[in-house]
């Protein structure tokens, strides 16, 4: 068990001038499950591989516990890694695959066997121990890869998109299993994924990366409630948050036919930096259908924004309405969540207002969060 620290860690690929990972600073607590998430090419896998020792660190340091491992080879770092394609040794049985690291470490045979059997029991692999990987299904191979990591009892688990080769249903199941296994073992884990649902459901904390730069590290709850900038706001949440550029008015911002209150300091900060507009973010689930009682700016039109329905996705429990609306003189796409029993039809016009206290305000020019 150990903490993991990225201290200004930087990776520049040979021949490239832009860093793949740029001055990454993350402190991971002992026993924590940290998820690195971001779009492809954001440097999340590179960060993990730097921690594993598979990529050089060009600048800064990486520490596991108190040990500086920046320039140690992988084998001296006391880590175990689960690869996206599992990287099982095809010529070895499941048991040999799982026990290989222990065998190299010189652990005696009886103990290797005992530890492999223990791990196999946890992962429900006991009856497959003598099989070769090619005689296993995708899910079983994934569990063997997990088992190979578990038997080593390392200080840190590293997982590089371990679920992306599974089918959708199995992925959801395995997601829960990995999370609960990690809680049980209490081993510090760094998990890389491009799937923000995985990130939100599994991690104690989530780190969002973009273009090699860390955008935000926070708990899933805070990440959802208070995204630090426009990128995180758009990345976390499914369907994505509606981000609409609106003009600043007195005491708030005009959102269609209503005014969304925004605190004064935020607006002042925006107008001080010369912005005439701010970007307002509202999640699809935080829109309310206006029933005429909401306060509107002009009396002769209903409150909120008029959204013309283009597509409706019915998910059973609820539905998502994909529509277009005119906000501040330009056409924008808006997604609204509606109750599963009262789904509008295509072509209908809905009047929606953001629920109070659930709006996010970002600076249009810098993308930084203004509201608190």
């Amino acid at each position, binding site marked *: 068990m150990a903490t993991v620290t990225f201290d200004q860690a930087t990776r520049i690929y040979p021949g490239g001038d832009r860093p793949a990972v740029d001055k990454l600073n993350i402190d991971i607590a002992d026993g924590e499950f940290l998820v690195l998430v971001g779009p492809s090419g954001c440097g999340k896998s590179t960060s993990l591989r730097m921690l*594993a*020792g*598979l990529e050089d660190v060009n600048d800064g340091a990486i520490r596991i516990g108190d040990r500086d491992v920046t320039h140690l*080879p*992988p*084998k001296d770092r006391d*880590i*175990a*890694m689960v*690869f*996206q*394609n599992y*990287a*099982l*040794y*095809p*010529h070895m049985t499941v048991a040999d695959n799982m026990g*290989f*690291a222990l065998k*190299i*470490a010189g652990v005696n045979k009886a103990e290797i066997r005992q530890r492999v059997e223990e791990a196999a029991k946890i992962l429900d692999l006991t009856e497959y121990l003598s099989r070769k*990987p*090619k005689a296993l299904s995708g899910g079983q191979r994934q569990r063997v890869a997990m088992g*190979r990591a578990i038997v*080593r009892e390392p200080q840190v688990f590293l997982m590089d998109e371990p679920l992306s080769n599974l089918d959708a249903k199995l992925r959801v199941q395995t997601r829960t299993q990995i999370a609960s296994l990690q809680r049980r073992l209490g081993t510090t884990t760094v998990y890389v994924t491009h799937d923000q649902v995985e990130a939100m459901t599994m991690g104690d904390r989530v780190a969002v990366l973009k273009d090699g730069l860390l955008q935000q590290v926070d708990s899933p709850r805070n990440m959802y409630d208070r995204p630090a900038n426009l990128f995180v706001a758009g990345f976390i949440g499914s369907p994505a948050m509606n981000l609409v550029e609106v003009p600043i008015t007195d005491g708030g911002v005009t959102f269609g036919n209503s005014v969304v209150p925004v605190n004064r300091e935020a607006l002042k900060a925006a107008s001080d930096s010369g912005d005439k507009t701010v970007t307002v973010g509202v999640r699809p689930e935080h829109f309310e259908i206006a029933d005429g009682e909401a306060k509107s700016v002009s009396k002769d039109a209903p409150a909120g924004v008029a959204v013309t329905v283009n597509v409706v996705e019915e998910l059973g429990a609820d539905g998502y309405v994909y529509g277009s609306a005119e906000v501040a003189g330009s056409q924008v796409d808006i997604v609204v969540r509606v109750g599963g029993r009262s789904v509008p039809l295509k072509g209908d016009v809905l009047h929606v207002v953001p629920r109070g206290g659930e709006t996010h305000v970002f600076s249009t020019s810098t993308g930084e969060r203004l509201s608190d």
Partner: protein
Amino acid sequence: MSTVEDPTPTPVAVTAAAPARPPGRDERFADSGKALNVFSHGFLVLWAVMIVLPLVWIVLGAFKTSTEIGGSAWAWPTNWNLGAFGRAWENGVGGFLVHTLIVLVFSVTLTMLFGSMAAYVLARYEFPGNRLIYFFFVAGAMFPVYLALVPLFFMLKNLGMLNTYQGLILVYVAYSMPFTVFFMHSFFRTLPTALHEAAMIDGCSHTRAFFQIMLPIAKPGLLSVGIFNVLGQWNQYILPLTLMQKQSGTDADHSVLTQGLVNLMVQSGYKNDMPALFAGMTIAMLPVLVVYLSFQRQVQAGLTAGTLK
């Protein structure tokens, strides 16, 4: 003995020939795939016959008498006995076989070991000069061995290695290296890098990762290139002819099979014993046929090799 080639890659010519078929036959073979099949199979049968007939003739010759061999090529032997094989064996073929085996055991093993090691490093490690060394190896394959014969002869002479096993073994290893490196290089490239990384994280040294992980996984490739090397070195004639000649009257005879058989033919004692010569050829041919037939699947697998995903 290039007769053991796999005759499958032929359908190109067949596709081109197919549309020229008269319409009447096209109707009969309404399914054009079927027509192609009949044509290509006919072609393959013809090819197989062309290859198998001379082989069978040689094997049958071992059972004939000299007069029968001189007679009709289509006649069957009248008296089936293994006498010719015994005579061939006693007259040196046994020794030639042993010499060949001694040379091949070492030369093929060393070729595979060093070839795969070099190929692995060139395929998987980035270092300055990597490409240059690789091209150097590959260039060796384009260099006709005949051009090197005279320098090779003097090189071995200076080293005192003419007519020695170790001399021929070293030359064979060098001779087979370009193809081995070329083939294994592309094979190692197809193996997933994650396997090597997993081995590194599991605590392997580079040596252990190579011998315990990468080499076992490369087994199909090793087998096929190994078989090509066995065939190539077994059938090698010009190199032993130049480098394995007796240097003096007292020098031991280390002739390998190919060279020994020719010697048998030109030696006066064999002028009248054609069946023994044919028997000697059969003996020389059999091990290669056995190797090829028993590893046929691996040869094909090696040529189309991938790995477990």
